[in-house]
Structures are given as C-alpha cells and as structure tokens.
C-alpha cells in the first residue's frame, strides 16, 4: 500500500470524525454499528480468499462481545481500549483452540462445522444463568484513559474509537493480504497439494487465517457490545453469522474499504426495512443475496474496483 493511499484513508476517516458533532446521534450510532460489522467482514475476507466460508463467525463475534460485558461485570474493567484488547485476545484464543479441529476442513464441511461450533456457544449462553441466559447482560459505559464522557459525548467517543479501529484494521489487513501467507490464500483455493509441496503446511495456514479473522470478529463484537450497551445470545446465533456472510457477498472479497461500505449499506437497508416493512426484512435480505449471487457473483465491490491484470484473487470461491 502506498503512502498516498494511507494518507487518503486517514483523511477520509479524519473527516468523518470531524463531522461527528454535526451529525444526528442516531446516524453516528448506526455508522458505529456498521463499522463493527465491517471489522468482522474484514476477517471473513481473509478466509473467503482461501475459499473458506465460515457460517459460524458469530462464535468469535459473540466471544468478543461477552468478553467486554463480563470483564466489566466480574472484574470491573471499564477502559475501552483494555476491553477491546481483552475481547480480541479471547476471540483469537478461542479460534486458536477450535482451529485445531476446524483447520482440517474445507468447503461445506468447514462452513457447517464452524456453524455447529457457534451453536455450541449459543446453547451455553441461552441456558446459563450466570451468563445472563436469553436476556443477556447490560454493558456498563466504558471509560477512555480515565475520562468518562456521558450523553452525546459517549456516542462521539465510541465513534472515534471505531474510526481508529477501522484504520488499524485496514492497515493490518492490507499488510496481511500482501504478505506471503495472505497471497497464498488464492494458492490454497487453487491447489493445496502444490502448496504443501512448496514446503508450507496448508492446515497451519488455514489455522492462522482463522485466528486472525477471529481476532477481527472479536474486535467487531467488542465494539458492538459497547455501542449497543448490551449483549445477548442472539449475537452467537447462526443468523448473525449469516448476516456477516451476506455482507461479504454483497461487498465481495476484493477490498477492505468495500467491506466497510457493504456493512454500512447493510445497516442502512436494515434500518429502513425494519421501519417500513417490519415483517419483510428477511425477504429483502434473501432477495438481495439471491440476486447478488446469481448476477454479480464477485460482489458489488467488484463493480467499483478496476480489474488489475495481476490480481489473482476472485470474490466468491
């Protein structure tokens, strides 16, 4: 990534941050939530490029969210940065452990096994009183380096935090995608045998991808928990995972900014749909998904991006 692009990205995000005080609060909350989804989708892109579609990414999303809620409730941790660091670590740790099983699978088995694992967490959350059961837990308001903004200030603070997370994720994920491991995603999808015979373990590469994507999902979950001030088992449910997959398809796996734009579009459409057509949200979601797969299989993001001659990656596997 060139310095110019980094500068441009920083300018756009900085502009958004500066515009916050002049923006309606509901819109800021919506964008913050969209950015939390975008973070998860960034992680999905990493897997997606390797031909892996996780239907259970909500496992890591919910792990991040509950880590924030429980750290506050049990240990009185309120610092937003610490909470997010904890959430990222926990999600990555869970992925590292389940990765020993999951990384051996590909395609449909990977998808469905990750779904089953997320449903285990859902089952635990729903039944466990200490974890808030079906009602979930409220998340206490976080502090920022000892400062405790309240009211609109809190919304702004979270928004700026979200912008910072998006910027770091963008830099980090772009760097990863340009690394040997990142570029081998397409190689894994193309020909695993060849990758093994070049001297590197495909299983371990998938394990790494899973862990990184989980860390991003954990960050997204943490941000969502702080932004909604509440966590519940629905966050681990498979329809939540389905939403992430949905945005990834919509945005395509070609670029990180497309992931965030896709997530924003998703939140806007959802907000409008819920307001105008309360019973029709899934209908719209399903129809858009169907049309996208049938007619723009590379994702809507592909429409915005010029085809590069050397781009080996494709959107959908």
């Amino acid at each position: 990534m060139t310095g110019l692009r980094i500068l441009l990205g920083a300018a756009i995000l900085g502009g958004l941050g500066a515009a916050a005080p002049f923006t309606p609060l509901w819109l800021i909350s919506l964008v913050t939530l969209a950015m939390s989804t975008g973070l998860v989708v960034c992680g999905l892109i990493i897997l997606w490029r390797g031909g892996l579609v996780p239907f259970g990414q909500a496992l890591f999303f919910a792990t991040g969210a509950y880590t924030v809620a429980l750290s506050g409730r049990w240990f009185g941790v309120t610092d937003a940065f610490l909470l997010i660091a904890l959430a990222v670590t926990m999600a990555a740790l869970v992925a590292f452990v389940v990765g020993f099983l999951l990384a051996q699978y590909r395609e449909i088995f990977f998808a469905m096994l990750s779904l089953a694992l997320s449903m285990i967490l859902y089952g635990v959350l729903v039944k466990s009183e200490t974890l808030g059961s079906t009602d979930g837990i409220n998340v206490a308001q976080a502090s920022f380096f000892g400062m405790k903004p309240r009211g609109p200030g809190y919304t702004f603070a979270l928004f700026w935090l979200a912008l910072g997370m998006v910027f770091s994720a963008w830099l980090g994920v772009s760097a990863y995608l340009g690394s040997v491991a990142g570029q081998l995603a397409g190689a894994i999808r193309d020909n695993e045998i060849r990758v093994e015979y070049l001297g590197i373990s495909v299983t371990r590469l998938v394990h790494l991808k899973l862990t990184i994507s989980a860390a991003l999902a954990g960050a997204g979950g943490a941000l969502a928990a702080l932004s909604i001030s509440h966590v519940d088992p629905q966050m681990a449910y498979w329809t939540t995972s389905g939403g992430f997959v949905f945005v990834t398809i919509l945005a395509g796996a070609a670029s990180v900014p497309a992931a965030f734009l896709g997530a924003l579009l998703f939140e806007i459409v959802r907000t409008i749909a819920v307001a105008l057509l309360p019973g029709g949200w899934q209908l719209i979601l399903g129809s858009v998904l169907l049309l996208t797969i049938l007619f723009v299989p590379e994702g809507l993001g592909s429409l915005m991006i010029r085809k590069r001659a050397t781009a080996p990656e494709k959107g959908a596997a």
Partner: protein
Amino acid sequence: MSALLSVNGLEKTFGQVVAARDINVDIPQGQTVGIIGANGAGKTTFVNMITGHLTPSAGTIRFEDRDITGLPSRTIMRLGIARSFQVAQVFPTFSVFENLCAATAIARSGTSVIGAALSRFVSAETSADAETAIAQFQIAQFRDALASTLPQGVRKLLDIAMATAGNPRVLLLDEPTSGISLEEKFGLMDVIMGALKARGTTILFVEHDMEIVQRFADRVLAFYDGTVIADGSPAEALGDERVREFITGTLIRSKDGKLSAGRASHA
C-alpha cells in the same frame, strides 16, 4: 562414499496389493537417474514414498544420513528433496510470475506460517528469484499469462521451476514428458536438464521414452512388479534380458543406433 539418498528394503502394500517391495537403491550426489517400468510397476509409488506422499509399509529412506521415512511431504521438501508431478501442479488463477513468486516466497519465508504472514509476497528478492527461474526455464514469453492458459509443455516447465525454488539437492520428476508431443519432448528435456545441471541438482526422472532415458540418464532403475529388476548404466540396464522381456518389449534400433521401446522413433 556415502550416498546422498539411500533406500533400504522399501515396501508398500495397500491391503492385499503389493505396490512396492524390497527396493534397495543408493543415489550418489550429482547423478541423473532414469526410472523405467510399465504402468503399475511401482515407479510413482517409489517417488511418492521418497517425497512423503505415501508412508512406506516397511523399510527406510535416508537423505544426507538422516532418516526421513514417513515424514510429511513439506518437511521432506524443506530438507532438500523436491518433486514435480505427472499432471503439472500449478496455481491456475495465478500468472506464471505469481506462481514462481509463491514458490520463491515460501522458500525464503521459512516453514513457519507466522514468518509467512510477516514477509512480503512480492519483494525485491522473491521477484529476482522468480525472474531467474523464468530465464533458466525459458518461459519469459509467458511471464504474465495465467497458468490455466498455458500450453502443456510450459505448464510442465513451470511445475518443475516451482519445485526448484528452494534449491533442492534432489529433484524427482514424475514423467516430465508425459502429454508432450514426440517432436517437443527432446527440446523440453534439454531445457529442464540445462536448468537443473546449472544448479548441480541430483535428478531422478520417471520416463517411458527409452530414447530420452538413453540420452539424459547416467543410470537406469528398471521397475517391474513393485521392485527394481535392473540397476546400472543405460546400456547395461536396457540390455538386461528381463528388462527387454518385461519393460521395453521388442526393441527397435533406429538409424542413429538408439533404442526405443515398441515403436519406431520419430522420422
């Protein structure tokens, strides 16, 4: 003199079927070994066992005095034994250059996936290595073509070029000229051998065309029924009575005095 690659009592059975038995071979540094035999004689099983694709049922494989029997293929590759494939194994959605970058980048970044995540895919070093390989294997005109669009011969070259990225000491070529027209076979082998000789690689290649074996091999291993029935210079091995009976069949001596199996050499 101790051998670079040493195989003792190697055996492989699949249930009741014996695919390889009692194989004993020592390969010294720098040799070019042709492996011949009919289909199902155990040639590819032999290659697959040495490169870790199959675990032997019995016997040992030693490389540089180290026991490598049953190690995973990627570890064996790291130790310095690479291979090519009968059906070229490349990344179809990558260009030739990117295929070679993948190979050189992995060779440079080491076995660890963390290392792979921290090193750049296209760096000055990986590009330079890739360009060198492109030049050595004479595929410059296809540099930016997608591997899925390559002619068969070029794809074979790319496959072998990728296998050499880690500068292996031993390279096993599984039928490098299969699927290549008679006219192009020699040209292809010239390119391959030229590139490999420049690196001083020890070569084992599986081949059906006896003319190619005669021309390029210093030594021939003849496989029949899962084991080696003849081992020696091309003249010795191809002259062996059992080899003539079981493998080469009726030999036809062409004008220039070369032997080829079962059919007249190209006009």
